[in-house]
């Protein structure tokens, strides 16, 4: 039943929603504005909002000092690579958990999730040493492996929930129709799960793109993605706010644009199965 909401109540709700929205958006806006200020204006007290001398100098300096496109490319390779490998591992795993569960399936799922509760720094030293011995430090391949493993529980969980929504009878029908396991997954399950797989993919690209702990600790120069690019402008002296902001804006712009265009898919994916 629809509840009647008075106009005043509605106006109040709208105002609250906009305020919260503005608060969430403010840091991004502030970073964006600061990136067009001079270093002096960036730390001015009281702060200036729009009335400053807009300059693109920071962007030029940042690009001169460090090669944005190399970092950008590393970010793309690492986030897309780890997501694709993760999907390749997670699809069969989620299939078996959703359609041929054993009595331990729930426990395995919980165990996988529990690895996400461990603070990453707890395993930094062993992983660092393993990476050093295997010569994986500062390589794209090494980062792809570590990010795949880190995001795998989320990928499996998301796909598991999507697959659970697909009626088992349809897969049984395919089996009766003479489909092998491979055809069943390829022609029936995957096409039906496309929306779910797409949103899993988008979310994981975003998570991998923004991942900073491992990318900062396991890279130096060659394989450093955009997170390292930002970090290189945060000096302890804190004198380069404008350049830091320019670097941040450049780093988050691609993923923000991608998120903007795929937001419908993302929201659908994240709330999929919530109402049933």
């Amino acid at each position, binding site marked *: 039943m629809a509840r009647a909401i008075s106009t005043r109540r509605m106006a109040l709700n709208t105002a609250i929603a906009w305020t919260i929205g503005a608060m969430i958006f403010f840091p991004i806006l502030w970073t964006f504005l600061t990136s067009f200020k001079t270093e002096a204006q960036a730390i001015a007290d009281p702060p200036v909002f729009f009335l400053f001398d807009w300059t693109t100098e920071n962007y030029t300096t940042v690009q001169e000092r460090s090669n944005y496109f190399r970092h950008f490319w590393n970010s793309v390779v690492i986030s897309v690579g780890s997501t694709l490998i993760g999907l390749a591992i997670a699809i069969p795993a989620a299939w078996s958990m959703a359609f041929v569960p054993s009595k331990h399936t729930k426990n395995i799922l919980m165990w996988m999730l529990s690895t996400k509760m461990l603070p990453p720094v707890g395993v930094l030293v062993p992983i660092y040493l393993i990476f050093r011995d295997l010569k994986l430090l500062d390589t794209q391949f090494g980062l792809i492996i570590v990010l795949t493993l880190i995001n795998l529980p989320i990928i499996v969980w998301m796909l598991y929930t999507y697959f659970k929504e697909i009626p088992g009878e349809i897969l049984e029908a395919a089996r009766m129709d003479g489909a092998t396991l491979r055809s069943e997954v390829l022609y*029936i399950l995957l096409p039906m799960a496309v929306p779910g797989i797409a949103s899993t993919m988008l979310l994981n690209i975003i998570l991998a793109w923004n991942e900073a702990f491992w990318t900062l600790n396991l890279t130096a120069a060659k394989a450093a993605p955009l997170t390292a690019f930002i970090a290189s402008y945060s000096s302890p002296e804190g004198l380069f706010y404008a350049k830091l902001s320019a670097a941040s804006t450049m780093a988050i712009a691609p993923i923000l644009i991608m998120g903007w265009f795929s937001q419908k898919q993302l929201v659908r994916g994240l709330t999929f199965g919530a109402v049933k």
Partner: protein
Amino acid sequence: MGRITLHGVTKNFGDTEVIRPLDLEIEDGEFVVFVGPSGCGKSTLLRLIAGLEDVTAGRIEIDGVDATGVPPAKRGLAMVFQSYALYPHMSVRKNIAFPMRMAGLDKAEQNRRIESAAAALNLTDYLDRRPGQLSGGQRQRVAIGRAIVREPAAFLFDEPLSNLDAALRVGMRMEISELHTRLKTTMVYVTHDQVEAMTMADKIVVLQHGVIEQVGSPLDLYREPRNLFVAGFIGSPKMNLMTGEEAERRQAATMGIRPEHITASPTEGLWQGTVGVSEHLGSDTFFHVHLDGRADPVTVRAGGEVSLHHGDMIYLTPDESRIHRFDAQGMRLA
């Protein structure tokens, strides 16, 4: 060919015995209906034949070949599911083509079979639609079409009509019966609706708690139910079952008489009672009569336009030759 034989087939889910050791012979070309209340194991039995469930013990033979460990895809059977189980991302044409595509049939043969199935099932105009754009009855026909084109050894139907409304159900029932007459392929059909079982089957298998209670033609089951369960389950409205004096007088623990084998009269008869609820169907009227000194009402069939009212006095006379007698264990007495 589609001869299916079950030898001592058993199925357990954990500690629960769903199918007790069971033997059954399904002849080639026969229309066999598994019927029973929900939870009796009829769907499980069908899924065992399909290969969608593994048997715990026993052997399933299809055309004399042991198929017990054979995966469903290789058994040469086709199944129609209760939920239709169409592939929602494919057009009707592609749905019907799917089993042939899996079998690697050439395109021309695929199209020939699709066209002929579509023509037979009135689907020609819908071939390019998605399942989501079809009505329930059309979806069910697509599911049947998908089964036909495989030219299977046998068709398995798992309550295919229970998602359809009553009018459509009667129509589809006829279509499936006609299909069977035309194709002469073995059909195994699961339902909880005894009317479907009676109208469609060559042979009915009545199941309860994973045990076969009786196997026989619809009329065999109607005329000579082997026990009280079958007596009560087959026939609509249900057979009247009585214990006590009337049964004892006929040397039985329980006696049964069908509503259509009782004559009602306003003036004279063996039993006296008063009319309770009456159901007017037009062609028939069913009176629920409260006999003097009995708790349960007796159901009687009378002509369509008999007018008796609630509370009227009525006399009933059972046809003695049609009385069924059962012993204390509920088994039929000869």
